[in-house]
């Protein structure tokens, strides 16, 4: 599950598409307005629904379309990361990245690395709620 901000990361992933860069199809994107709007509850919810990994990606610090939304995201995500580690989730499963609208290649690389890192961990069952 990849939460991409509309202005930088989603545009960056669009650029990856335009440039026909290939990456694994494992990440399903949800475009949000700003990484600052990604509530911790979205992240927990994604894990609860069985996501094997969650990525939050926004504009580079200082370049936020909404001036400072990604700074809030950064602080919030740092806490979420600690909490997830505390409850025993493998830290690799939750990542944050900064991808600008010009960084299609970086987005591609991030998804590739992410998938490579979490594949050996197998399916995430810790937070998954069985239906």
């Amino acid at each position, binding site marked *: *599950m990849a939460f991409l901000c509309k202005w930088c990361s*989603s*545009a960056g*992933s*669009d*650029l*990856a*598409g*335009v440039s*026909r*860069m*290939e*990456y*694994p*199809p494992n990440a*399903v*994107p*949800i*475009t*949000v*307005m*700003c990484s*600052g*709007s*990604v*509530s*911790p*509850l*979205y992240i927990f*919810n*994604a894990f609860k*629904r*069985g*996501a094997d990994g969650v990525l939050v990606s926004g504009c580079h610090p200082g*370049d*936020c*379309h*909404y*001036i*400072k*939304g990604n700074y*809030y*995201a950064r602080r*919030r995500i740092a806490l979420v990361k600690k909490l997830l580690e505390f409850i025993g989730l493998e830290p690799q499963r939750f990542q944050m990245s900064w991808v600008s609208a010009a960084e299609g290649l970086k987005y*591609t690389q991030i998804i590739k690395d992410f998938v490579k890192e979490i594949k050996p961990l197998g399916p995430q069952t810790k937070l998954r709620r069985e239906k």
Partner: protein
Amino acid sequence: MRRTGVFVCHCGINIAGTVDVKKVAKELSTHPNVVHSEDYVYMCSDPGQNLISNAIKQKKLDSVVVACCSPTLHESTFRNCVKSAGVNPFHCEIANIREQCSWVHKEMEKATSKAIKITRSTVEKVTRNEPLEPISVPVTKRALVIGGGIAGIQASLDLANSGFEVVLVERSPSIGGHMIQLSETFPTLDCSQCILTPKMVEVAKHPKIKLMTYSEVQEVSGYVGNFRVKILKKPTYVDPDKCTLCDECTKVCPVVTENEFDLGLTGRRAIYIPFPQAIPASYTLDINSCPGLLPIACGKCADVCEPKAIDYDMKPKIIEMDFGAIIVATGYDLYGKENMAEYGYGKYPDVIDGLQFERLCSASGPTKGKILRPSDHKEPKEVVFIQCVGSRDPEMHCSYCSKICCMYTAKHAMLYKHHVPDGQAYIFYIDIRSGGKGYEEFVQRAVEEDSVLYLRGKVSKIFEERGKIRVWGVDTLSGKDIEIDADMVVLAMAMRPSKGAEELAKKLKIALDKDGFLAEAHPKLRPVESVTSGVFLAGAAQAPKDIPEAVAQASGAASKAIAILSQERLFHSPTVAKVNTNLCTGCGMCVSVCPYEALSLKDGKVEVKEVLCEGCGTCSATCLRAAIQVKNLTPRQVYDMINASLGG
């Protein structure tokens, strides 16, 4: 229950080549709320759009999902299409299965599965979309132009000549900017002052332009169409209406300080007029160098002032005004001498920068147009010009090219040769960048007609020896070390954003690029807009540029501003925050994180000023009680999207 239609585009083979579009349409047809699902080769074509309109009418659809390319491309196409078929445009959403799916994957099965997930997730989103209407606000038909250089002057004149009121704010005592300091301009060798002063006079006399010099923007609030700006008018201590420009005050002033206009090559008094053609034509008392405003401290200038124009009791004034659009044209400064120790700039008086050389050449300059070196006022016979000083040097200085130096250095060498025909001009360069109308020919003219010697290489060291400035460099074309005993050295310093641009950018909520220049909204397609709607950029504040480019950008910015000012009302995206007052406890956490000051507390509850809200959703992620949400991207919608994306 919603009646949603799903339309899957093949985009020729762009999507259909990797995604089984038929399967996507089929799978989606069984999704809850979907009553119609089909695929077509080009949805954005007229027949494709007709397909959507017809389905809306026949199947009584109330929402539409188009699975196609990125919403940045055809979202508005499809929203307009559903609107004309009678459906609220905010009930149409785009599922991006091209850029974020078919173009980046190769295996059909996996790409199809991902496309289905993306489309399902979008259907879930649209199911809870509210029908919205754009928010409309009236427009204040007045523009603010910040910076009175050539770009600000041009933008002001264009706006005023289109019939709009303009306030031009300039922080120094006169408009004119750096262009008024220049001697001649490339490639025509027009006298800079001769072509600029008519425009300056026009600004001063224009009934639609209110000129505020010695003033600074202090605070900006509001939004496109209705900015509220506080402007600080600093006291000049001289009433321009009474001043007769008799110049008696400067004769008695006991203070001599550095003259900014001549870049320190001459001095000026504490009470001064920056240059003879200054606009407004009036004197300014500089309190930083004046011994004191109390008549007991000095008071000589007021004593001799016959029309009693000098008023020591003048106070700073804050003027508050509303504007519909703002143009920022704050210009450039040269890279500071403190950064260029290796070239002896600031240490040796005869090592000067390009702007100082302009003053030496200028007919109105300290030497009345004779090129005399600063140290002993002798005519220099060997002059070394060095390009790329501070530019194109990512390790030590600025990584970018300052763009104008190749041209003005050629001009400098040429002007020098015109003034001192028996002298020799050397130019050290890395590359010659002479793109522009008549520019390459101009450089060739310097080489062929004025025998300027171009040396391709960098200068390693400059030091003084026996009254000469020894320049050590290398000519990389011949591979030889070069040693020149020069009488004067002129450095083509890098251009930097002017001092204070950063604070101003913060006030205007506009972005800076990595080098501190004001950032445009899109490097190719929106070069005069800032990221904040209604704030436009002009001139060297945005990037190094020469006069014609600055003028062109200023006219571009003015016409963008006119596009706003000529509207009666403006429309604002209605996907803004909304408060559930039953849940809101008035804790104010969202108020403090809002980047746009769109939220405030009223009677213990948060209130959204919709025209200020940009819909970023930072408030929503901060609220502990889910009391504030952005319309059409609520947490509930995101949960449904997550659920659909992860396979139900």
